[in-house]
């Protein structure tokens, strides 16, 4: 494993079926050295199935997966000592202390990091002699991450690491993940939190129904699929009403950039490359047509706008 590979992880045409249902559908992506790549998608998108195939825990039906240039299927024993894994749902020995847990997992690997340093790095010093059953959710998840780092892996798989955590614990874990990244380790992260992907990932792959529908950095995705800014506006009536739809139609004939406007939060949202100009033209046009605007908001576009643009559905409504 001493060689250097620019792409530590390569996935090509990955397919996984559960009976007649296709969970992963010809998925291809790669993770480069020192990069944090996030698989972002709503629940049921196939993220966990994908990451577990890459970790060698599940079998694939089609496609190729290579880690450090070697196929995981044929070289599992050789690859495992060099990857770190944090599963989405694992209950470690609850009667074990933090230190005992780390000692146990350290013993499974031919080489491991100094446990006291690892405990300090993960801010677990105060609870190192506490049993896991006495820890908070955030502390337990830090232990799970510590276990994933015990063998000083080059590539770390983190499957929804912050799910179920309170906001403070989430932020603490983000800091930790940033720290792991700063050590030039590659990270494959799955998440259904848009903000998490945006903050942590160098590149994001958006997964829907087992397929990768878009890929790039958060900025690239926003610019490619939305425009830098998003303009949300509201008429007197709710967007679902025929009156509001009629008003929108009238506006669209005058303002072509409104063609792709979508319903959101009772109003409409449209993306624009220059927001101020868009506001000016919208206000002028509504005045001209006698349409009453009751609210107007201009903000930077987000991944949520990208998702809405790509799927036609709001991200929060997209759990499959």
């Amino acid at each position, binding site marked *: 494993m001493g060689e250097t590979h620019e792409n530590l992880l390569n996935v090509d045409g990955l397919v996984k079926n559960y009976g007649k249902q296709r969970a992963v559908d010809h998925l291809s992506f790669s993770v480069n050295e020192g990069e944090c790549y996030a698989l972002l998608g709503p629940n049921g998108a196939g993220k966990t199935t994908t990451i577990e195939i890459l*970790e*060698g*825990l599940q079998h694939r039906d089609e496609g190729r997966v290579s880690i450090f240039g070697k196929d995981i299927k044929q070289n599992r*024993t050789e690859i*495992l*000592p060099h*990857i770190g*894994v944090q*599963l989405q*749902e*694992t*209950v*470690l*020995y609850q*009667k*074990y202390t933090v230190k*005992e847990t780390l*000692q*146990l*997992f350290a*013993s*499974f*690997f*031919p080489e491991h990091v100094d446990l006291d340093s690892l405990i300090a790095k993960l801010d677990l010093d105060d609870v190192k002699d506490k049993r896991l059953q006495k820890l908070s959710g955030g502390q337990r998840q830090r232990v799970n991450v510590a*276990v994933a780092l015990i063998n000083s892996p080059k590539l770390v798989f983190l499957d929804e690491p912050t799910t179920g955590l309170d906001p403070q614990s989430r932020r603490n874990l983000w800091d930790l993940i940033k720290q792991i990244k700063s050590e030039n380790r590659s990270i494959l992260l799955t998440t259904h939190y848009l903000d998490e992907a945006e903050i942590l990932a160098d590149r994001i792959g958006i997964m829907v129904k087992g397929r990768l529908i878009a890929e790039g950095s958060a900025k690239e995705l926003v610019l490619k699929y939305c425009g830098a800014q998003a303009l949300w506006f509201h008429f007197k009536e709710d967007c679902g009403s025929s009156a509001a739809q009629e008003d929108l139609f009238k506006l669209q004939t005058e303002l072509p950039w409104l063609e792709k406007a979508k319903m959101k939060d009772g109003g409409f949202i449209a993306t624009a490359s220059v927001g101020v100009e868009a506001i000016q033209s919208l206000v002028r046009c509504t005045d001209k047509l006698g349409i009453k605007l009751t609210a107007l908001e201009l903000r930077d576009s987000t991944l949520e706008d990208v998702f809405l643009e790509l799927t036609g559905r709001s991200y929060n409504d997209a759990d499959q």
Partner: protein
Amino acid sequence: MLTNSFRELVKCRVREVFREPSAAFFVVAVPMLWMLILGFAFNKNGDYSYPIGILKEGSVFEQPIVIQNLIKASENDPHLKIFEGSTEELAHLFNRGTINLALAAKDGAIVFEFDPANREARESRLYVNDILQTGLGRSDFYKTIDQPRSRPGDRYIDFFIPGLLALSILTSSLFGTGMTIVAFRRNNLFKRFLATPISTYELFGSFIVGRFVILALEMTTILVFGWLVFDFHVAGSLLDYIIVSLVGTSAFTALAILMGSRLDNVGAYNGLVNLVTLPLMMLSGVFFSLTNFPDTLATVLRYFPLAALVDSLRQIALEGVSITALAPQLGVMVLVTVVCSVIGRAAFKWY
């Protein structure tokens, strides 16, 4: 085999028991309770009774003279417990198990009503018949003397303690190991292990060797408590006794691995354990000797793994037999260990 990971896994198995108060209770306290209950229940010298029912017809003076004699004898016989009643009342006492024999006078004879398959009922019949016949003047042709045996090694408790140790090994292995396996699978812990370079053999081996440590605790409890309370001794070699126990523990831990190889539901595993342990307990001579069964059945039952363990422990403890003479029993247990481990590994579901 003695790698660092193996040592850590064995430590885990042991800590699971010592850090779980209920598990420690089952390993230490339950065998002692069994010993106390059964030891005293079957070890009360001469304290036994024959509960019989007599069909009541009119006053006592209207009963045939033999029955009047029996009722009179019962006043001075602590072993004879008489219940008089109507046919319906006696039937009720039979149903409850209060009596195991009923007497009635009919056409100049005494009718004994009892279940011939019930050994205690047969004993009651013989005892009562003796009183009836001797009360009318029957005498024995030859003098006999009853010599009670209650020296260490001859008592029921001496017979029972090796059986109890075997039973303890069986139940703690099946529950301790199997339940742990099922719970780990349910908690995705095996899945987490699968993402490390751990070897399956080390994992399985740790379950067996971890049980050895628990066995040391079980054995010490049973042997020391048996010695202190009942003056129980192992007539043969203690080392042989330990080796046989280790082989038995391996067999039942391997059986637990096989039984838990695919389940992730504790309730289903409990059901499976009951399905396996109940016949093993009843048909392996733990509580009573296999000679109570018909010869052909007893011959087959001797090859049950629990029967092989019970028999080996009894032969060493009661007869001082050497381990070299126990090759067939040890062979059965080793075979169970190998077969269950191989099938268990092939069938093992990590998650």
